[in-house]
């Protein structure tokens, strides 16, 4: 027995119209994707909640704080000198620069930041510039690796190893350097240090050139970076970006030039500026900054007061018993030095009441310390202006409109470190 079934076959235009009606809800639906906090491209513990329309990001909400250790609270409960090791752990890719920044901030409160011995200033500048190269190298290596270029990572890490050796020779530690003290340095650099720096510069110039040939005109690299994550000049200022990220947008602001501290006035270097403010510009600015740091280091090696071996015994610390520790020999033989040593160790450096802010041009941007003192050896409030924290706040505006595969590129180009962001 045959049955007849009515089959309705509509033409394609009618079918599409019917399907569109049914799919309307599905098409408009957006997906929420959680990225991090332990994602290899987020360089630490950054979490981003992305809202996606297909592969295009429509909303991004960065979530920081996974590495929060309460450094500001800790600082209120110890003497100024005791906090120096904590600054190593802010931007742990450039601990030497953090040490210098913090010491200068406390010295500004004491009113001695422009009376530091010249040799101390030169050694500090060298430390800060070595730290800048080291931080930019890691940023560049990780940036390239996230984008698929693994070779650069190997090159930059070889060079970073040499900087660690230099830090070890100066301070005795590779990562947790704590090299500065309030009013000077922990100790002078060893006599062969300047030669080691020169040797490093020679080898580094070759490696940097090699990394540059691998990337700067690499078709894939340029295609992925250009016109991506564009930050205009006005937007960079409005969002308070600092360091290479600010300069890549064409804002001519470098604290080493605009508010010269230490001996930067006597040194000859240029400030690298971008024009578009995209990821490629941020990459180029960092490359140029490393070259300028090499120039600064070269000049410092030649001009350092006392020469490499410090035969004329130039001091590296302020000669004030109320600020820097006296020599051990004097502590054991003289009453006054013994008292100074005792007071400094138990009560800390006696700072005047008042408030100061000091911003230091760190590799990631402006690392600022706001110190509010009621007098005595501990701060009443110590606020750390962390450049990574502020640079990250732009993500919510920068990512929407990008593809998902662009996220590692934008993150790599902003070059942040979560230890500093979360404090």
């Amino acid at each position, binding site marked *: 027995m045959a049955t007849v079934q009515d089959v309705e076959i509509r033409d394609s235009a009618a079918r599409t119209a019917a399907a569109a009606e049914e799919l309307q809800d599905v098409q408009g639906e957006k997906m929420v994707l959680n990225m991090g906090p332990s994602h290899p491209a987020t360089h630490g513990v950054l979490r981003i909640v992305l809202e996606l329309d297909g592969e295009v990001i429509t909303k991004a909400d960065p979530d*920081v*704080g996974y590495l*929060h250790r*309460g450094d*500001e*609270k*800790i600082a*209120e*409960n*110890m*003497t100024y000198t*005791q906090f120096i090791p904590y600054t190593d752990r802010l931007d742990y890719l450039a601990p030497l620069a953090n040490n210098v920044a913090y010491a200068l901030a406390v010295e*500004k*409160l004491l*009113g001695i930041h422009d009376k530091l011995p010249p040799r101390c200033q030169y050694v500090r500048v060298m430390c800060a510039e070595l730290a800048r190269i080291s931080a930019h190298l890691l940023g560049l290596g990780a940036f390239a690796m996230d984008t698929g270029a693994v070779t650069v990572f190997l090159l930059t890490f070889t060079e970073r190893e040499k900087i660690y050796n230099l830090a070890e020779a100066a301070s005795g530690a590779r990562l947790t350097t704590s090299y500065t003290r309030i009013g000077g340095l922990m100790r002078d650099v060893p006599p062969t240090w300047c030669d080691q720096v020169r040797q490093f510069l020679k080898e580094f110039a070759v490696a940097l050139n090699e990394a540059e040939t691998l990337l700067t005109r690499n078709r894939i690299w340029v295609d992925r970076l250009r016109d991506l994550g564009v930050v205009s000049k006005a937007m960079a*200022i*409005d*969002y*308070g970006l600092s360091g290479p990220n600010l300069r890549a947008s064409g*804002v001519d*602001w470098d604290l080493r030039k*605009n*508010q010269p501290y230490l001996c930067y006035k006597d040194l000859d270097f240029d400030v690298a500026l971008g024009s578009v403010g995209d990821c490629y510009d941020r990459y180029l600015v960092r490359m140029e900054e490393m070259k300028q740091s090499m120039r600064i280091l070269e000049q410092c090696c030649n001009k350092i007061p006392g020469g490499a071996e410090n035969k004329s015994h130039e001091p590296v610390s302020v000669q004030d018993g109320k600020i820097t520790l006296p020599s051990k020999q004097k502590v054991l033989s003289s009453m006054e030095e013994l008292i100074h040593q005792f007071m400094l160790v*138990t*009560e*800390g450096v*006696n700072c005047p009441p*008042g*408030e*100061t*802010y000091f*911003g230091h041009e760190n590799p990631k941007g*402006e690392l*600022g310390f*706001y110190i*509010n003192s009621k007098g*005595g*050896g*501990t701060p*009443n*409030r110590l*606020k750390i*202006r962390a450049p990574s*924290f*502020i640079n*990250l*706040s732009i993500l919510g*505006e920068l990512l929407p409109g990008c593809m998902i595969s662009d996220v590692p590129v934008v993150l790599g180009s902003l070059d942040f470190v979560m230890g500093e962001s*979360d*404090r």
Partner: protein
Amino acid sequence: MSALKSANQIKAKFGDLVAEPTEFRGEITLKIADAEKIFDVCAFAKSIGFDYLVDITSIDNYGSDPRWTVAYHLRAIGNGIEIRLKTNVSEEKSELPSVLPVWRTANWHEREIYDMMGIRFSGHPDLRRILMWEGYPYFPLRKDFPLAGKPSDLPGVAFTQISPMEGGPFVTVAGGNDSIAREPRVRIPETDSVEFNARIEARADNKEARGRAFGPGPIEKK
């Protein structure tokens, strides 16, 4: 154009609202008498060139009134002039206008201050905790929050016990009568009898303060 000139320009515009500029280590500070007017002052400061907000800081003046101080560090990128604006906020109010419409970088600064100190910013569109986790019950940067931490009974959140080092071995306070006051292992201000009670007695609103040592809590979600 110097920082002092800019400060006087702001003072001329707002009159008695702004105190005479003070200078310390070459930094100019302006005190704003009424925290409610901070938005207007900031908007005017931006219009005369302070286009870059470096930082916003909160200070807990525990034991004196008004309890909070909020400091804004401004900079004019064009000529490098810097100035600091300060205003006080009482503990009862714990609120001041947001400057987010003036500088967008204020967004995370204000969220951080709310998270750490519990000062609220009216008009901020997204005032959530930023460094601590959502739902954390305390404001850790307040002076009456002990360094050793406090246990919190949130289920499923790690590290809710007080820290095992009891605040760390190196914690010292300069001054103090004896070595115990100078180097206490755990400082819990509520039970830290000598110093804490003296501070509480010194407060003008002493009776009210006893009941609300922790100030206003987190914003209730509606």
